[in-house]
C-alpha cells in the first residue's frame, strides 16, 4: 500500500490489519442516509482492521431465495477507520442484493465479502488539486476519498485546512454532486459541513425540487458551463468521476471537448446493483495510423473518429471552422491513404482529384499520411 495508508493506523486500532480479506463481515451499524440510501458498517473477525485505499470496493455475496448473488459496493468510509469499513447502498427496485441488504440485513448479521479491489483512488493518483464529479450513489468512493483527505489532515496535524501527504501545501478539493432532488442528496449534511469548514468547494446540482424543498442551488444536469463554474481550473485538476453511465458519458464528452489530459481523468462506474462496469464511449474498435508529415506526428485514429478530431487530440491545431464539411477551412492535402469524406460542399471534385480533403468530415479507411 501507499505511504499515505501506512501512516493511518491509530494506536487504538486492533493488533491485526489486513489488506486482503475474504470471509465473513459482521454488520455492526446501520445508518439511514436518505429515503432510499443506507450505510452498513461492518466488523472483521477478531476486531481486525481492513487496509484499503479510498475509492476501493468490496465484493459482497448474499443468498437471496437460495441463490448466491455477488455485487460490488464501494467503501464509503475513511481508511482512517480500518476497523469499521462501511458501504453505502442505494435501494434499487430491480436489485435483489440492495433490496436484501435494505430489508433483511440487521445488526449482528453476517455477509461474505472479499476485497478491497480497485485502482480508482487518490492513493493511486495522488494530486494536490482534485475534482470529484459524482451523481447519485456514485458519490460513495469520492466521499471516501474526501474523508481520507480530511482524516489525513487531522492525523498529520497540519493545523487548519487539508494538507497533502508530505506536500506541505494545502489540498484543494472541488466536489460536484448531482442528485435528482434535494431529498436524494447523499451525505448532504457532511458535504455542507465540508464546504462550511473550507475543506472543499462543494457544488450540488439538482434536477428537480422535492415535495418538501424547492432547490435553491444550480439545477439541471452537469453541463460544461456548470463544470466551468464549479472548477474553472478543471485542466489543473486530477479528475475523479463516478456515477451512472449517462453521467459518465456526459463528463467524458465535456473533458474531451476541452482537451483535458486523459491521463489525469479517472472513472469508476457501477451500474447500480448490477455490478457491471459502464460501457466506454462507442468506438468502432478498428483503428488506423494517421501521420502528420510536416509535424512529424503519428497517432492512432479510430475508424469512427474524424481526422480533425484525431489531430486535435494529438495536440495539432489544424484550422477549422464549420466542422461539417461546408466552409473548406480545414482543407488539407492527403499524401497517402483513403478516407470516408462526408463533405457538404466545402471542397470541389477538382480539389479532391488534386489530393485535397476535409479532415473535419473524414474518417480513415486505412493508414493515412497528411501534409500538415
Amino acid at each position, binding site marked *: 500500500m501507499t505511504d499515505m495508508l501506512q501512516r493511518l493506523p491509530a494506536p487504538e486500532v486492533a493488533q491485526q490489519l489486513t489488506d486482503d480479506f475474504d470471509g465473513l463481515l459482521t454488520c455492526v451499524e446501520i445508518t439511514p442516509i436518505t429515503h432510499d440510501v443506507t450505510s452498513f458498517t461492518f466488523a472483521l473477525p477478531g476486531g481486525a482492521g481492513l487496509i484499503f485505499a479510498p475509492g476501493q470496493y468490496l465484493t459482497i455475496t448474499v443468498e437471496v431465495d437460495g441463490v448466491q448473488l455477488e455485487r460490488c459496493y464501494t467503501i464509503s468510509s475513511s481508511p482512517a477507520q480500518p476497523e469499521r469499513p462501511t458501504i453505502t447502498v442505494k435501494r434499487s427496485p430491480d436489485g435483489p442484493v440492495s433490496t436484501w441488504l435494505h430489508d433483511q440485513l440487521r445488526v449482528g448479521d453476517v455477509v461474505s465479502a472479499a476485497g478491497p479491489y480497485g485502482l480508482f483512488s487518490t492513493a493511486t493518483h495522488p494530486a494536490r488539486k482534485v475534482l470529484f464529479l459524482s451523481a447519485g450513489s456514485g458519490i460513495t468512493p469520492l466521499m471516501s476519498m474526501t474523508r481520507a483527505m480530511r482524516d489525513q489532515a487531522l492525523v498529520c496535524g497540519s493545523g487548519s485546512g487539508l494538507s497533502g501527504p508530505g506536500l506541505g501545501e494545502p489540498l484543494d478539493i472541488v466536489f460536484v454532486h448531482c442528485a435528482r432532488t434535494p431529498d436524494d442528496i447523499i451525505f448532504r449534511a457532511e458535504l455542507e459541513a465540508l464546504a462550511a469548514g473550507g475543506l472543499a468547494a462543494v457544488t450540488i446540482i439538482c434536477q428537480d425540487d422535492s415535495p418538501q424543498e424547492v432547490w435553491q442551488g444550480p439545477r439541471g444536469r452537469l453541463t460544461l458551463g456548470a463544470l466551468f463554474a464549479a472548477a474553472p*481550473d478543471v*485542466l*489543473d485538476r486530477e479528475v475523479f468521476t463516478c456515477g451512472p453511465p449517462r453521467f459518465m458519458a456526459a463528463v467524458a464528452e465535456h473533458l474531451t471537448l476541452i*482537451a483535458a489530459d486523459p491521463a489525469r481523468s479517472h472513472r469508476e462506474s457501477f451500474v447500480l446493483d448490477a455490478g457491471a462496469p459502464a460501457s466506454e464511449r462507442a468506438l468502432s474498435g478498428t483503428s488506423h495510423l494517421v501521420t502528420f508529415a510536416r509535424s512529424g506526428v503519428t497517432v492512432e485514429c479510430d475508424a469512427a473518429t474524424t481526422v480533425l478530431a484525431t489531430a486535435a487530440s494529438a495536440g495539432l491545431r489544424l*484550422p477549422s471552422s464549420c466542422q461539417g464539411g461546408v466552409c473548406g477551412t480545414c482543407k488539407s492535402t492527403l499524401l497517402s491513404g483513403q478516407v470516408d469524406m462526408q463533405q457538404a460542399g466545402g471542397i470541389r471534385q477538382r480539389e479532391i482529384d488534386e489530393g485535397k480533403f476535409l479532415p473535419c468530415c473524414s474518417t480513415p479507411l486505412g493508414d493515412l499520411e497528411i501534409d500538415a
Partner: protein
Amino acid sequence: MTTLDQTVADSTLTDPTPTNRTPTEAAATAAPAHGIPDPAVLVARRRPGHVLEGPFYTSPEIFALDIDAVYAKQWIFVATEPEIAEPGDYVTIDLGRYSVIVLRDDDGQVRALHNVCRHRGSRVLLEERGSVGNLVCGYHQWTYATDGRLLHAGEQPPEFDKACFGLRQVAVRTVGGLIFICLATSPPEDFDDVADRIEPYLAPHDLANTKVAAQVDLVEHGNWKLVMENNRECYHCEAGHPELTCTFFPTYGFALEDIPARLMPAHARYLKAGVDLARACDERGLPHAEIEELTDRSTGFRIQREPLDGAGESYTRDGKAACRKLLGDLDIPRLGRLSMHTQPNAWFHFQADHVVTFSVLPLAADRTLVRTTWHVHRDAVEGEDYDLDHLTEVWSRTNEQDGEFVARTQAGVSSPAFVPGPYSSSEYQVDALVTWYLQRLQEHLGR
C-alpha cells in the same frame, strides 16, 4: 529620450482602386443621387444590434461631424509620458483641422496647447515630435514659453499686453502615464471618476518611468470606426491572427454557449489561467476585476486584468516575457495582460515586462492613423534585456493583419450594394462602441 524607432508604414496590402478614391467620390457613391445623407436621419434609423449604414464610413460630411461631435468633445488618448520624458519634449497631434502640441513644460508638467500662433495663426511647431527650449513661431518669431506664455513678440506698440496672447491651452489629463487631451472648452467631467478607478490597475506598471522601445505609425485605409470596431471583437482572431492567438485567447468576448467546440480547449485553458492569475493578483494586491462601462457615459471604458495563454507572461509566441527587466515593483512576469479600452480611440495592454499603447487618430473618412508604442523598463538595454524584433513581432503582425481587414471592409461598405448586417453575440463590444458613438452624435445634434 532614448531610441525611438519610428516607422511610418502605409498599409501596403490594399488594392488601391476602391479605397484610394477621394472622399468626395466615396460620398457620391454612398449617398443617394438627391444629396448627402442627413446624419440625424441616419442616427435615428440605425437598427440596434446592426452595423452602421455605409455613409457613416464613407461620407466626408459625417467624418467632419465625427471630429466635431466626438474628437473635439471627448477625452482622446494621444501619447504617453515617456514619449515626452524631458522638459521641452513634445509631440504634435492632428485631429481633423485641429493641431495640438502635447509637451512637458519647464516645470515637468504635461501640457497641451493649440498649435496656432496668436499672431496671424501660423502653425507654430511643424514636426511631429521633437524637443524645444521655447516655442518659436517660424513666421514672425513670436516666442512662447513651454507653458504657453508669450515671452517675446518683436516690434509691438508699448501698450501691447503679452499676457493676453499666450498659446491657447487644451485640457490635458494624465493617468497612469497615459496622456489624454480634450479640445472642448468644458470637457466631460466624468474623466475624474474614470481616472480614479483605472489608476490602481495601471499604477503597478509605472508607465511614466518606462522608455519607448519602438513606435510604429500605420495608416489604415479605413474609417476610424472600422479600426475601432475591428479591435473590439475577436470573432476574426482565430483565422486572422496566428501570432496573436499563440497567447491571446480567441474566445475573448464569447459567451460560453456561443463558443464553438473547437475553441473549447482554449477556453478551458483561459479559465484555468484566470484562476491562477486571480490568485497571483490577490496575493499582490493587484486589482483584476472587470469594469465595463462602454456606453451611457462620455468617458466609456473597459478594464480588466486577464490571462495570456502559454507561459502567460507577455505577447510573444510562447508567452514568455520579451524583456528581462520587469516594470515597476512587479516581482513575477506571469501577470497576464492588464487590458484597457477607452472610447473612442484607444486600447492598451500592460504586461509585467512591457506596455503597448494604441492610439487611433482619424485622418479622413477612409484613412486612419494607428500609432502603436512599445514601452519597456527605463533601464532595459536593447539587445541585452530585450530584442526589438521579438518585442514588437506579435503586435506588428497583428496590426498589419487588422489593417488588411479594415481596408477590405472599407472597400465593402463603400459599395452601393452594402446592407448592414447583424452583430453576433461575441461582438457586443462593437455594438457598444457604435451605441456610444450614436449617443455622442445625438448629444451633439441636440436631440
